[in-house]
């Protein structure tokens, strides 16, 4: 999939896919900016959906179909739903949220620019003039290639990540459980919270 092309197609004659890629990228960027600047909390979450969806489209344009759908499934389908769930649980108001502004705008902007700069620099430095030829309509191979590279070359980071996630999961369970010795046991034997606890 990755090999340096002998003849460089050049940047001055963009194809339709490249133009689309650029436009979707701009839209994604715009959505992302709105996400962090809007004063309405739920709108921010929904603009985040647009931004994440835009990224999924970018993956699609790069023929990374599998990654694109995973992006939609995990981020749009689960993370944002969780986010919205939290917002609704805390009764996010319709209209402006008075406490939506943490007054860290300039710091946030600096951090964002620094992060973006680092990423762009790393990616640009890593690939430089390597031209990655994406095969359109490769069909079966994309998922297979992703899977085999994941479990052949990247299996160690993959497993490390899953251990990290497992640790986080266990930690969340431990934190959310109340200590039994602090509370009197509930009549049914469980450690349900009593009035004193609230």
């Amino acid at each position, binding site marked *: 999939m990755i090999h340096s092309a002998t003849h460089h197609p050049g940047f001055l004659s963009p194809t339709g896919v490249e133009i689309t890629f650029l436009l979707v990228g701009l839209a994604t960027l715009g959505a992302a900016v709105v996400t962090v600047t809007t004063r309405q909390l739920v709108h921010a979450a929904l603009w985040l959906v647009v931004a994440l969806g835009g990224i999924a489209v970018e993956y699609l344009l790069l023929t990374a179909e599998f990654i694109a759908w*995973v992006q939609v*499934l995990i981020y749009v*389908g689960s993370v944002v739903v969780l986010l919205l769930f939290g917002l609704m649980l805390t009764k996010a108001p319709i209209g402006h949220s008075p406490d939506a502004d943490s007054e860290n705008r300039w710091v946030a902007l600096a951090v964002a620019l620094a992060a973006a700069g680092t990423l762009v620099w790393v990616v640009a430095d890593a690939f430089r003039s390597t031209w990655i030829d994406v095969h359109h309509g490769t069909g079966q191979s994309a998922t297979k290639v992703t899977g085999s590279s994941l479990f052949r070359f990247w299996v160690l980071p993959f497993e490390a990540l899953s251990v990290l996630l497992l640790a986080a999961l266990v930690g969340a369970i431990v934190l959310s459980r109340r200590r039994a010795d602090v509370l009197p046991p509930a009549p049914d034997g469980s450690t349900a919270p009593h009035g004193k606890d609230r």
Partner: protein
Amino acid sequence: MNDTLHVVLRLVAVLVAFLVLPLLVGQTEHKVMAHMQGRLGPMYAGGFHGWAQLVADGVKFAQKEDVVPADADRRIFQLAPAVALLPYLLVLIVIPVGPHGFVGEAVDAGLFFVLAVMGVGVLGSLMAGWASANKFSLLGGLRTAAQLMAYELPMLLAAASVAMAAGTLSLPGIVESYHWWWTLWQLMGGLVFFTAGLAELQRPPFDMPVADSEIIFGAYTEYTGLRFALFLLAEYAGIVVLCGLTTVLFLGGWHGPWAGSVGWLWTLLKTAVLAFIVIWLRVSYPRLREDQLMKFAWTVLIPISLVQIALTGVVKVVTS
């Protein structure tokens, strides 16, 4: 040029199916539910046994007043039905109906595409629930979100089991590699997938998010006219999609006698039988309570689907 025409024709066919099949399911639900309760169901709309009841409903909904509550978040309120409905249209495109490319558009990671896009549809309910500025809608939205997060996992695991068995994520590929004994092998997974799908569609007995008698149809409380109809259409399109998917993944899609010529008929028939079961469950089983629902997902469905994955893995390793 010919290719473009071909694609357009396929998409039009999918669109027609998208508009007709949910209506068929709805009308069947009217009639089946009626007869299961010893009634007759619609008899007058359209003359013969009320066949046009849902058409009349559509005509009526189209001319109803479009109410947006004053305190609602107008844009999101109006956008929500489209967000709820469109994913099912997209999913319908990739469900294979018959052999030899009888599908709207074959997608490589079709299984993932389907699950991902169906998850997006729930965003519509969440948007509706929040934007209506109504406490019942908000409760409905919360329940929707909780239910989605609980049932997405067993559904994914069950689907993953089939993908492991077939060795591919492509839906036509899964059907191609189907053997009759897979239905038994994947039985647990199939049941989990179907049940979790029902919960994701918020069909009875998993319809707490829209429980009409306790929270007044949940997220859709404030919707009137065409927008409400779109939500209803989304629900019935969801039934079609879920039954189609279960057919494709667990019941072998077009496999059956004379599959080469009438394979599409087999798919439709199996889908119809599953849709009948969906309706049948609605008539027969009462609504679960919210805690029962959560308990069912986490203590029954997820363990079963994990066992299924283990079983699939063992059989796969032994037979290969």
